[in-house]
């Protein structure tokens, strides 16, 4: 049986999940931050990082074109 605390926790998690915007631009922002994080804490060069960012944006825009059709 679910205790009251567990229920509260589930509600809090649901609220948290609902508060995170899910549109494609937020999704892309999260992707870019992850690329940035990997580069900042790892040893990836600036050139490589920017090229990954360009790749992500290019592919998202292309995908958008296909979806629009």
């Amino acid at each position, binding site marked *: 049986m679910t205790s009251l605390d567990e229920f509260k926790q589930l509600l809090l998690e649901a609220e948290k999940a609902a508060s995170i915007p899910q549109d494609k631009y937020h999704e892309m*922002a999260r992707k870019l*931050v992850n690329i940035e994080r990997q580069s900042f*804490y790892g040893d990836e060069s600036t050139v490589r*990082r920017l090229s990954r960012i360009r790749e992500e944006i290019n592919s998202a825009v292309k995908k958008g074109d296909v979806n629009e059709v």
Partner: protein
Amino acid sequence: MKFRKIELKNFRQFYGDQSITFSTNKTKNITLIHAENGTGKTAFLNAILWCFYEMSTSNFKDPKILLNKIAKSENAKSYSVSIEFENDKGDVYLAQRGFSQNNQVFRVFEVINDSYKEVDKPNSFINSVIPKDMAKYFFFQGEGIGKMSGSKGDSVVKIAVREILGFTIAELALKDIQSVKREYQKSFSNSDKSGQLSKLQNEIMSLEEIIERSKEQLDDYSKTIAMYNEKLEVIEYKLSNSDSAVIKQIHNQRKSTESQLTREQHLLTNARKEKRTLISEFATTVFGFELSGLALDFIDEAEYKGTLPAPYNEQLVTDILKANLCICGSDIKPGSEAFSRIQDMLKQAADPMLENRIRKARSQLTSIKNDSAKAKSRFSNNIKMLADSEISISKLKLDLDELNIKIKGAESLEDIQGLENERNRAKNNLIQDERASERATIQIEVNQKTLALRKGELNRLDTFSLEMQKYKKLVNYCEKVENVLKSTLSASEKDVELRIIEKVNKYLEQFVRQDYKAKLNPATFDIRLVDKNNHIVPESDGQALLLNLTFIASLIELSRERKNAQGQILTPGAIAPFVVDAPFGDLDNKYKGHVAKAIPDSVEQVILLLSSSHWEGTVEQNIREKVGVEYNMVLEETSESKSKDSDSITILNKDYETVRYGKSVDRTVLEKVGSYV
């Protein structure tokens, strides 16, 4: 995350192999390390920072020379620090940073049943456990963080809040997306063969850069304005609480005169605004007044009376005469009596459209005539208000000058004169920055309007080539992602302002004797103590340190709350041991006790590095029952003690040496003196 064990090999004063096993007990969560000045507290804290991130605290001298001197003289070439820790799920890891054969190696292993499995990308892994930016708040040098308030407080607090929220990475991402967007904008311009669109695009790019720079400037102005306002508030507080009754009285009089002046200036601004409104509202009335009189006379001339408004429609009468046929169906022959009568009607007939226009004109002119009386009375009132305010303002300014001279003239009170000069400087700087800020705001508004127009123009043009269309889409996409990042950062900063200050106040309530609260200035991020009337209180050194500690405790708490932040743009928070080197500095005994008691309650694991002056008394009384294990850092010296007194520390009624003379090498050794778990 909890530390289990640390091993130091030839690291600074820790010659040979030295280790500490930390308490991981939930209730007795303190590992206490006694260390007198100069034995190695700071080196120990730096061993942790070096092992995880290859970084050091600002007070750690010669941070590049880490090999122990004795080991070096014995031709040893290697030194290392290993930390064994467990995560929230109980998984055990070992982080090792070592230097040998001119090479530094950092490795992390997962420890499963005494076997070691190396973790790929150790730097990324450690930063996922505790991000580097947040580390200095967990592995904390008591004297290192500086003041939370005053001239440098703003940047300290702002940086700390941003680092604990993981702004660093999101801001780097923002910079990158802006730079990629600029690349696409340039490619768009370059692919325009006509040159017409690229001109527009270049203008957009340059406007965006100007707006960005102006916003940064505006941000700087807001900070300096807030800083001068706070400075003035502190000076006002000091003057209001001056020892001299005369100064106190004059200053209070000045404060009340200044309030009156502010009110009058406000009234003057409103009266000026009303004047502008009146001019736009009654411009036609004022300028058309004379004309309206003449025009009405013209329309009311006797010869037009009876014609306008006309009883007959001119078009209808002309049509009847042309058709020789009445509307009743009878023939009307020219020369007949009926024809002549109808012809006479033309004299009184008029065009209905013209009639309508004249009627409207007359009504407009009449309203102008009526409005003129109203306008006159409102303009007279406004002119009177403007004059009254200007007279009051100049009188109040004279009064203020006189009061200023009186305060400055207090020759015997040099500190008052100093405060006065400081006050004048701050006031002048404030006025200058406020004006500059207003100018910058107007400039931004103008540029934003132009930018919107240019973007609109560009979007309306449909002469793009396929290549240009591609770049336009890429630019638009980058812009949308850029806006997401910007709005997330700004919303999070606002949210954290409230949460941090709430937490700081929760701690202060427990610690501070007076009815003081902490107040965060959102423009500068400066945290200050305010009294019950919301006036800034100049803090003592002890109060300032207390504010620092409560702030750090609040940051750690905030980080813990954000531990499970999933899928967010900002880095999730961390739960980590709180390793504190000499946290109690200038605190008096009572404050020390309060803070010491609160620390183990707010974090999962505490490693306290304390000298006897910090430990003995209230600190011991308040945390003794929470100590899990206890170590003593002993300084071993090759020199003889000669006439030096023996140094020792008393722990649970037993004396322990803190210095030993006549030993074979100079070093610090870590000795366990108690385990209570």
